């Protein structure tokens, strides 16, 4: 049953600091995400939604709780295996672009492949493929700093996409963009989900964006307060009710 979920988290707890300054970011959160699903993690800033995404993306380790990614227990994985998993299976889109300045668009896009140790020719081919898909092929040789905001975010999506990941984690992907360009970026992401079956996990406080996802998980003060399933899909039903473990 477990391998049916691409991500299966049970009772995640995470706190920062100790003593009086101790802050419990997550107080027992369970989340299950199926392959091909689009899930929005919604909450105000400080609600713990970013911490949850970091744990799900294996960027951080929970204090308590279990986390299974593609049927494998995250705890049992070596550091190296975790790195490889992030490199091969996950793509990241952040609110800020984090593009390397003074480096070409293509070089920015193929960074994950470079880290994976792929050969130069294959890297280039895959990079150009992705740029063509995002209609940025003509900008491949340009420096990343010369692009507009929307183009930059498309480069970031290209970078997240280039390793053909199973899951793309997007943290406020449109937070830095105006409404029109934000909508274009959203369209690209949901299109990828439909055409390539890539699972989307979107962290946002934007209700409109959240509404476009199959499912919304609302987080407040480190707890899941409610689950909602959008009407346009009935594929996946709500599985867990939030609450302290």
């Amino acid at each position, binding site marked *: 049953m477990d391998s049916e979920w691409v991500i299966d988290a049970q009772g995640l707890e995470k706190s920062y600091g100790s003593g009086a300054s101790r802050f419990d970011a997550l107080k027992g959160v369970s989340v299950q995400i199926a392959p091909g699903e689009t899930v929005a993690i919604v909450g105000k800033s400080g609600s713990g939604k970013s911490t949850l995404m970091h744990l799900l993306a294996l960027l951080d380790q929970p204090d308590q709780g279990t986390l299974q990614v593609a049927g494998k227990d995250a705890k049992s994985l070596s550091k190296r295996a975790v790195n490889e998993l992030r490199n091969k299976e996950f793509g990241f889109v952040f609110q800020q672009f984090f593009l390397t300045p003074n480096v070409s668009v293509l070089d920015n896009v193929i*960074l*994950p492949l470079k880290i994976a140790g792929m050969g130069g020719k294959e890297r280039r081919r895959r990079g150009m493929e992705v740029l063509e898909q995002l209609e940025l092929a003509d900008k491949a040789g340009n420096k990343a700093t010369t692009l507009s905001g929307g183009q930059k975010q498309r480069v970031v999506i290209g970078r997240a996409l280039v390793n053909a990941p199973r899951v793309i984690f997007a943290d406020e992907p449109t937070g830095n963009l105006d409404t029109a360009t934000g909508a274009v970026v959203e369209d690209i992401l949901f299109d990828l989900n439909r055409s390539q079956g890539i699972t989307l996990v979107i962290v946002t406080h934007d209700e409109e964006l959240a509404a476009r996802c199959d499912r919304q998980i609302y987080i407040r003060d480190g707890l899941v307060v409610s689950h909602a399933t959008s009407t346009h899909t009935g594929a996946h039903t709500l599985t867990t009710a939030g609450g302290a473990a």
Partner: protein
Amino acid sequence: MRTKDLVATAISNTFRSKLRTTLTVLAIFVGAFTLTLTNAVGAGVSQYVDAQVGALGSPDVFIITQASDATAAGDGPVKYDAASSASVSSQQGPPGTTTKALTDADLATIGDTAGIVSVDPIRSVQPDYIEYDSGTPYEFSINATSAVTTADLTAGAQLDGGATETQLMLPDTFVAPLGFASAEDAVGASVSIGITDILGERHVVDATVVGVSLESLLAAGAGANDALIAELADAQSGGIDTAVTSYGVAVAHFDTALSADAVTALKGDLATAGYSASTIEDQLGAVQTVINGIVGVLNAFAVIALIAAAFGIINTLLMSVQERTREIGLMKAMGMSGGKVYTLFSLEAIVIGFLGSAIGAGVAIGLGSALSAVLSQGLLSGLPGLNILLFEPLSVAFVIGLVMLIAFLSGTLPAQRAAKQNPIESLRYE
């Protein structure tokens, strides 16, 4: 990440902040430049001294004297003993001392010592002049040990010790005054050497010039083979048998196959028999030590400059890590291991070190070679054969390697900092 990609990324990262990299490279440049030059001076002077040592004698030669009596100041005068007290004043001993003479019996004893191939007394001769083709005669002297030396040739061949023909090795300063067109022209010519015997009568001995040599600092005078020395000595003695044959110094050849330890043991054997034996190396050890000392001090200054530059590297890379926090976080989030991040920053340090040292060494070689050429024509023209700056590929490579090592060590701290960065902390923007 592949090693090739790591190196390429490190190189391109180095040039991202051009001004900062340039300044750091300049600091290393100064150190590497100085170190290359001081090494070259050391090598140049050492090579010159080695050539001089060669001029003074072959490596398989002992200079043997009677061991001097260890007469402590308080012991008073030593009683005369007819058997052992024959002393000769000799130019060969240290200045201001008298060396006890070696007799034929001593020579026989030395010759019989295991490991000694042959032993020859040094007979010093004092010729008055040299002249060619009845031209102007010039004062000149013969180096008594020249029969066993290897001359720094400019033309012709080395002396043949075994030849019956009288052979002369002419210092190159005599070539033009004697009327030869060139050093090659002098080779094969017959010259006349004038010598006054002990009775005041003048003799002329003819000799063939077999070679022309550069003047040497440590062994002045012309060279003569055994036949010429014997003939001159006979002329000098005026036909009178001086009855007691005694020599200040003898030259003994030892077996060239002996190891350094065996040579030391042989010296010990001779010391027990009452002789002091020293190789040319022993005699020049002091000179070498002084030169090495001076070069060592110069090198120390250069290394101090490099240590200062190392702090520059640390500073540069720390700033770089600070500036690229986000980038490092992103790469780690994308699955780059801490070890690879560490390698990347270490490589950047090494690239900076390589740039500084390669440019420093290159400029030092260019400038130094020009300087060396100018000096050997001007200030140092009195020391023919001295190449004050000698750039040995191995020592230049060593300097570059050393600087890269220092750079790597300097990069350790910033690289560690980069490797330890937490991707979440690095990517936080709220």
